[in-house]
């Protein structure tokens, strides 16, 4: 209780009413994602022990599966975190991912003529990243220069990328010939799946950019008060365009990983995970009004979704319940955020 008292004192407020409740709510809001994750893991663990006399958390296979399960939505969510902090949203990433998956497969197959799988790999990855920059730049230009609302601009690009992906794939999946891509996509290094390790590298890069580089600081400022950012001399236009390019690039990584994992590129690869990626960012503590959010929060958010999806299958619940469970978590998460904001006024 001493601790609680200290915490109530620690933030000076103009109002003075309901400070105690507000303080607890703020704490709850700040750690809600961790709390959710802990509750989920505990629930599944107990469930597994009681119903099946087995373990959920302490089974390395489960941990590995959940990590792999998390990779795709998390990659989309990483770029999305930046965009949402700036006050925008990127609905196009699902099909930017699909586009990159299809391009990876096509280019990898095309480059087989050089007879060196290493070259094929490099060329395919470069092409997939390069192609993703196009929707990213167009999104950025629409939003930063033409003042199109992000929701609408990226929804348009969602349609364009979707159509182009299916056209490139001729309406079907594009199988990859030759093994290196698949070997990397399904292989492990020192016991960890390669895709998880690569994702960790990308996470570190994105965390640095958001929380330690000047660019990240500017993105928070843009999301907090765009006029303040402008008056401070920040190049809001270029920063905004860079955001959507960044978001497209993490989506492209997800597309490349998809093709590597399944040895086939599919236009619809990212469709089921688009909303999961936004959910991960929101569950992770970002506000859709901009100005707040962290990479670590987003990782926890993506893990929560993966644990729900994988856990429910593990304990033999009908798979459709996962949609309900994820939906409930999103709503609770936003409610806690709103209550905390309400307490602030």
């Amino acid at each position, binding site marked *: 209780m001493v601790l609680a008292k200290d915490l109530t004192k*620690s*933030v*000076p*407020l*103009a109002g003075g009413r309901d400070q105690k409740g507000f303080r607890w709510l703020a704490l709850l809001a700040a750690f809600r994602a961790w709390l959710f994750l802990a509750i989920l893991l505990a629930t599944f663990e107990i469930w597994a022990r009681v119903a099946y006399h087995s373990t959920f958390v302490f089974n390395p296979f489960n941990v590995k599966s959940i990590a792999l399960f998390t990779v795709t939505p998390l990659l989309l969510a990483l770029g999305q975190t930046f965009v949402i902090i700036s006050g925008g949203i990127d609905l196009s990433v699902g099909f930017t991912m699909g586009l990159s998956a299809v391009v990876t497969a096509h280019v990898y197959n095309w480059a087989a003529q050089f007879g060196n799988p290493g070259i094929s790999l490099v060329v395919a990855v470069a092409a997939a990243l390069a192609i993703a920059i196009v929707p990213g730049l167009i999104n950025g230009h629409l939003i930063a220069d033409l003042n199109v609302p992000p929701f609408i601009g990226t929804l348009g690009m969602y349609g364009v990328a979707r159509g182009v992906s299916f056209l490139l794939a001729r309406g079907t999946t594009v199988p990859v010939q030759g093994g290196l891509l698949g070997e990397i996509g399904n292989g492990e290094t020192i016991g960890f799946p390669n895709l998880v390790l690569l994702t960790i590298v990308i996470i570190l890069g994105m965390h*640095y950019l958001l929380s*330690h*580089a*000047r660019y*990240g*600081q*500017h993105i*928070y*400022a843009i*999301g*907090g*008060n765009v*006029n*303040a*950012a402008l*008056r*401070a*001399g*920040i190049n809001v236009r270029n920063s905004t365009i860079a955001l959507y390019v960044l978001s497209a690039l993490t989506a492209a990584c997800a597309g490349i990983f998809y093709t590597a994992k399944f040895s086939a590129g599919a236009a619809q690869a990212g469709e089921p995970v688009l909303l999961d990626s936004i959910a991960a960012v929101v569950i992770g503590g970002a506000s859709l009004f901009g*100005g*707040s959010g962290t990479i670590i929060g987003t990782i926890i958010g993506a893990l929560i979704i993966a644990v729900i999806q994988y856990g429910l299958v593990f304990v033999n619940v009908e798979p459709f319940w996962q949609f309900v469970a994820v939906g409930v978590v999103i709503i609770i998460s936003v409610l806690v955020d709103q209550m905390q904001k309400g307490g*602030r006024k």
Partner: protein
Amino acid sequence: MNAPNKDPLLDLEQISKRFGGLQALKDVALTLYPGEVLALAGDNGAGKSALIKTISGVHKPDRGTIKYRGQVIHFETPHQARDAGIETIYQDLAIADNLDVGGNVFLGREILKRIVGLPFVDRRRMRQEAVETLQDLDIHIQHPESPLRSLSGGQRQSVAIGRAIHWKARVLIMDEPTAALGVPEQRKVMEIIQKLKKSGVGVIFISHNLNDIFQVSDRILVLRRGEKVGERLISQTNHDEVVRLMVAG
């Protein structure tokens, strides 16, 4: 007081500005000395905004000259004015309230430290330097690591002023700085203005509140329909005279 032995910081002569059919400013002259608070008074539409925006580089005057520290200047953008040391504190504050004190004071000019060759934003140093600047103005932020939204309106106002001072503003233009504040906070802002005066900053102060004007200003310049209709030393005028100038010239 406006010591005549000092050179003026700002010297505007015959500034005119027209927006379409509206003569916003007509042959306005203004002088500001270091360590002086000049109040701008006038009814809505009298030209106060047009005048400060001309000084801060938002508008370019059609006619007239602006001398700043003895040199004729032509600011193309507000950025140039700010870089030269003319800073405006706006009513909406231009504060990112999701960032802390350091983040705001150093916004766009963050301090970096290198760790294994990579540049990292040095939050601790930014916070420390920001807090020191604010302390010089007798502003004390209890939890400098919290985002500014947890601060009161007056404290946020102080951070905006502190930022200007940290970046060596010589002329501070304050547009209704007390309008949105409660009484104790208004008093605090008045105290800060007194402090700024002592440190030799020139302050141009716009307010609707004559009490505030009489409390901190040295001189008052009254505008009406774009023209200067009077200029008085605060010590030699009173509320009635100022109101008369504002409404009737």
